[in-house]
């Protein structure tokens, strides 16, 4: 498993991984996100605190997770991205759809507008 996940009382699932989210790990991450969403975890926060580097394949996995979550009526948010990840989001203008939240709490706060099951 590339990802560790934990679901709180509020039904929000925080997903974590270590290392690089890139060509070598993106396929597995995409698959695991799809499985989480398919099993009903549709409100996700991807904690990037321990992700050292993201490339275009990694971005693809996050976009794929975002799409699947939205289709299921939820969302995927990212939190605690480092400077490299922010630089990448800015360069691709994907920060418009994957807004980097400073903290898990901030990402969680915005979720109150999306009704839980």
């Amino acid at each position, binding site marked *: 498993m590339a990802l560790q996940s934990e679901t709180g009382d509020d039904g929000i699932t925080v997903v974590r991984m270590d290392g*690089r989210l*890139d*060509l*070598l790990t993106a396929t597995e991450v995409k698959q695991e996100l799809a499985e989480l969403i398919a099993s009903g975890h549709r409100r996700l926060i991807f904690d990037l605190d321990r992700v050292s*580097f993201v*490339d*275009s*394949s990694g*971005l*693809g*996995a996050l*976009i*794929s997770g*975002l*799409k699947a979550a*939205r*289709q299921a009526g939820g969302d995927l948010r990212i939190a605690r991205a480092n*400077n*490299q990840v922010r*630089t*990448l989001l800015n*360069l*691709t*203008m*994907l920060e*418009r*759809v994957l807004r980097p939240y400073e903290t898990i709490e901030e990402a969680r706060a915005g979720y109150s507008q999306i009704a839980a099951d």
Partner: protein
Amino acid sequence: MLLIEAYVATQTQNEGLDAIHDMIERFWSNAASMYQLPSETWRHLFTTALAEVAANGLRHAYPPDAIERPLWVRLRLFPDRVEALLIDWGSPYEPSSSTPDAPDDNVNIATLPESGYGLFIARSALDSLRYRRIRSGYNCWKLVKKK
């Protein structure tokens, strides 16, 4: 005047990406200990571009089932710029017809592309990205980012 130079030669996809990340990290650390570099963001842009071009060569230049995916990388720091040269021995690069559009304010997430950003990212992050097919059978990519 060349300030710092580093090389790495790798054989497989996994080894290749790991080695390139180790190399660029050491390169920046050496460079920062000796010279004044622009911002951290400047370094991230170059590192991101390098990783994209390397990933592109490692993944697309060789047949899908190839285990051996040789790649050679050289980094050079000059007073006014940083350069990388990447060589792979795969098939010639064929530009894809479509590059994803940047999302606008009304982006439809359902149709957002999940791939194809790689060389677009590299070009946007650099001052120049040049490709040459060398007749004796290898691909050569040159990345330049000015200070």
